[in-house]
């Protein structure tokens, strides 16, 4: 929005500048021509306000050129040309105004205009316009800096938030309680399996605690972690939960935030395989496409269930992607009647 339209303070500032400019013109007239103070000001002040109002349009010109100039010549040439055209039109308007005042006898001005005055008006117009451009450019730069700072802060907050949520998601109490319950059930009938489950759970939790300190891990490591989680769930669900993993070697070293995929596989279990009496297989696939890595998590699900999850898990993944990769990463979902597919695309960042 144009600064004039923002609030009263900006408007007042503009008007003050215009009036001061008008008085300076009046002063100039008084110095060059034999005219009364009243006549000089009657000529100068309206002309100054008109010029100021017209020069405020420079805002739109500065807005239309990016503040981070890659091409320096073109914007400067544009501004200069605009300033010269502005100066000429304004000086012409000044001549008209002079004639109007003189012809209708509004004030006591000499019939002949001082030739130097017109040249001075042209110069003032050009300089005034360039001044307006610079002032607006300054305002624009301040605003961009403020916006960038706020964006950086927001992204940092989102990152922290995501880390916290990821950690909490990993320690989903229901996952823990269900795992402990499985162990409790296995102790008497299948103690070996119970011990194995304790081992799996301890490994998974220990890794999660260590990873809390790193901001990036290799995709290979992330997939291993995910597989570990699924092995624990496989003890719970038995033959109902199948897992199929395919990691493309070209994508193995790409870097991702730790536990990025966790909410996706959790959903695949809870809202997918767990909703089917016969169960199903969760697919985990990574591949490299050009300078991007695509990770796909797919699962079958009950086609009749209408109410699904809250989208909380997907939201976490989206926020973490945005905080880590900005616009370069994406999460796309494909909700089909009897299946679900989530696809994470990240730019390649190798260690």
């Amino acid at each position, binding site marked *: 929005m144009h600064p004039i339209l923002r609030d009263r303070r900006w408007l007042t500032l503009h008007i003050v500048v215009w009036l001061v400019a008008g008085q300076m013109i009046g002063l100039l007239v008084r110095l060059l021509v034999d005219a009364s103070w009243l006549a000089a000001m009657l000529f100068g002040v309206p002309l100054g306000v008109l010029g100021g109002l017209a020069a405020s349009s420079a805002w739109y010109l500065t807005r239309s050129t990016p503040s981070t100039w890659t091409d320096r010549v073109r914007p400067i040439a544009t501004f200069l040309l605009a300033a010269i055209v502005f100066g000429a039109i304004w000086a012409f308007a000044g001549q008209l105004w002079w004639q109007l005042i003189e012809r209708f006898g509004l004030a006591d001005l000499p019939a002949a205009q001082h030739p130097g005055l017109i040249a001075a008006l042209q110069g003032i117009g050009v300089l005034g316009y360039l001044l307006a451009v610079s002032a607006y450019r300054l305002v624009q730069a301040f605003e961009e800096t403020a916006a960038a700072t706020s964006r950086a802060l927001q992204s940092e907050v989102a990152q922290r938030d995501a880390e916290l949520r990821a950690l909490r998601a990993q320690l989903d109490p229901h996952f823990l*309680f269900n795992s402990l319950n499985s162990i409790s059930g296995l102790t008497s009938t299948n103690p070996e399996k119970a011990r194995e489950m304790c081992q799996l759970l301890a490994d998974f939790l220990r890794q999660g605690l260590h990873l809390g300190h790193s901001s990036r891990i290799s995709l290979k490591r992330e997939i291993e972690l995910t597989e570990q989680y699924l092995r624990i769930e496989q003890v719970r669900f038995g033959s109902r939960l199948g897992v199929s993993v395919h990691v493309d070697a070209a994508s193995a070293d790409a870097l991702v935030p730790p536990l990025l995929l966790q909410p996706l596989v959790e959903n695949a279990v809870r809202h997918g395989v767990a909703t089917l009496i016969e169960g199903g297989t969760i697919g985990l696939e990574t591949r490299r496409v050009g300078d991007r890595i695509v990770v796909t998590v797919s699962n079958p699900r009950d086609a009749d269930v209408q109410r699904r999850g809250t989208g909380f898990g997907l939201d976490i993944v989206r926020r973490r992607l945005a905080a880590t990769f900005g616009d370069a990463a994406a999460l796309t979902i494909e909700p089909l009647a009897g299946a679900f597919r989530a696809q994470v695309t990240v730019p390649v960042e190798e260690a």
Partner: protein
Amino acid sequence: MDEQVRVLRAVIVDDEEPARMAVRQGLLDVGNVEIVGECANGFEAVKVVTDVHPDVVLLDVQMPKLDGFEVLELLGREVPVVFVTAYDEFALRAFEVHAVDYLLKPFSPERLAAALDRVRQRTEQASPAPAVLAAAARPPGATLDRVVVRDGAQVHVLPVDKIDYVEAQDDYVAFHAAGKTILKDQTLGDLEGRLDGRRFVRIHRSYLLNIERLARVELYAKDSRVAILGDGTKLPVSRSGYQRLQQLL
């Protein structure tokens, strides 16, 4: 062991095998229980309970196709239910639907024994009607997205978007869906409260209409209208029903 303690015949329902093992082992530890059935889903549970008439059902909440609350809605009148779940947020609802007790996974043998004692005390009491259970079986504010109906050992699961309209018939409601009719022991008023009010409109004292099936409303006589559905079915619309319909449209 006290000779007076009655042996309870129990059925275990959980879709996870280790979880069934945990309950089985718990019951064996507590004693005075005979395990007469183990089921991996709600359909099996309804069938087994119908066949063996147990004294108690130990029921998981989160299961595929038919969750624990739906199983209780179908069986509640016949058998005391003890919920066994990892989710403590279901506890309040569990007591609202008159579950005898609520065990959190993993549970101790003492806690299980206490639950079974409650079952022994509770057996003499009369259970509330299924309609009451059905009404309470969902958290307030949440609407049903499927209706479960039991026909002996058979269970019908009817997604609400498949329902054309519901008709009151004495103490029953008749669900009309794609030309078929399914009866359920419930009142239309109870049902109306559980369905999404933006989708199902009470167009008449005896009719609840899925608004997506409505083709048009015609004036039949003075102050009397009929709703014509997409398949040509005609249903009476009362004056207040017409007002509700207009509000929604």
